[in-house]
């Protein structure tokens, strides 16, 4: 099997870990074996594996940021997004596959945060793969019982007169938070606004931030 040429930077901006020279683990042996058997048996092809990796690599928070910025600039699109976020994302040209998506809006009186207590469901087909902490047992168990404490550890303090809504994606839906547009960004162009939308603000553990 030819080596895949994935020596570009990962979506986080860091180079891929070079695993070619680390000691082969039992589970890596299993991955190679499962992949080769599935290919030999004709269930999948090597090209499909390569293409699927590229498809997931191409998905990143930048896609979600564009959706959010578009909603900030277009009241009609915002309504469409809140009514059917999956269709609205597709209408913007993003291939999110069969994913079901619900957008929940932060307001002056509501702050939303997303968790999957049962596993690690995440809107990956729009935002890319989730961060490790999102999949951790600590995040999954604590966010539903002490969301404000968890949020403050992420640097977000919610005022007492704002309601926190924790969305536990227990079943078929995936969630994206539509953060509030910061007042000081009024007048910026849509593509400039997208730079303010962080991955964490779309999970609900962060707020939009000025780009570096």
């Amino acid at each position, binding site marked *: *099997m030819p*080596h*895949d040429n*994935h020596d570009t930077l*990962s979506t*986080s901006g*860091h*180079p*891929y*870990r070079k*695993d*070619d*020279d*680390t*000691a*082969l*683990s039992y*589970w*890596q*042996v*299993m*991955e*190679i*074996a*499962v*992949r*080769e*058997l*599935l290919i030999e*048996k004709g*269930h*999948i092809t090597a090209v*499909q*594996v390569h293409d*699927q*990796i590229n498809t*997931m*690599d191409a998905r990143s928070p930048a896609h979600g940021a564009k959706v959010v910025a578009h909603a900030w600039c277009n009241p009609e699109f915002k309504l469409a997004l809140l009514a059917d976020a999956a269709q609205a994302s597709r209408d913007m040209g993003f291939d999110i596959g069969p994913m079901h998506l619900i957008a929940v809006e932060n307001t002056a009186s509501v702050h939303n945060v997303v968790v999957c*207590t*049962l*596993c*690690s469901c995440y809107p990956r087909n729009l935002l890319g*793969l989730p*961060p*490790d*902490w999102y*999949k*951790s*047992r*600590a*995040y*999954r*168990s*604590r966010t*539903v*019982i002490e969301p404000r404490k*968890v949020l403050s*550890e*992420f640097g977000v303090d919610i005022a007492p007169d704002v309601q926190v809504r924790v969305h*536990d994606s227990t079943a078929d839906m995936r969630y994206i938070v539509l953060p509030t547009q910061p007042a000081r960004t009024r007048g910026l162009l849509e593509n400039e606004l997208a730079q303010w939308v962080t991955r964490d603000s779309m999970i609900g553990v962060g707020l939009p931030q000025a780009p570096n």
Partner: protein
Amino acid sequence: MGGDPAGDINHEQHDFALWEKRVDALMVLASSVGLMNTDSLRRVLEDMGKESYETMSYYERWIASVSQNMVEAGAFSTAELADKMAQVKARGTTYGDAT
């Protein structure tokens, strides 16, 4: 799980190794051809028990689940998997050698 006592959230993030991305791709592709689905992935992960969280990484658990799902679906037999794993292991001592 929800509400269970838990300690600090570790905010470190790691970039995914190629083998991990391949595991992810295998899950998606195997599901797309009907050999497994998200629910069967999760069910096998749950049946692996809490200890697997302590001893295995995220994608180690996933490949274990995908592998069991494939055997359950009849995609290949345990014996075929065993033979293939032995062949792979014999190729060398690094992931690069064995791929």
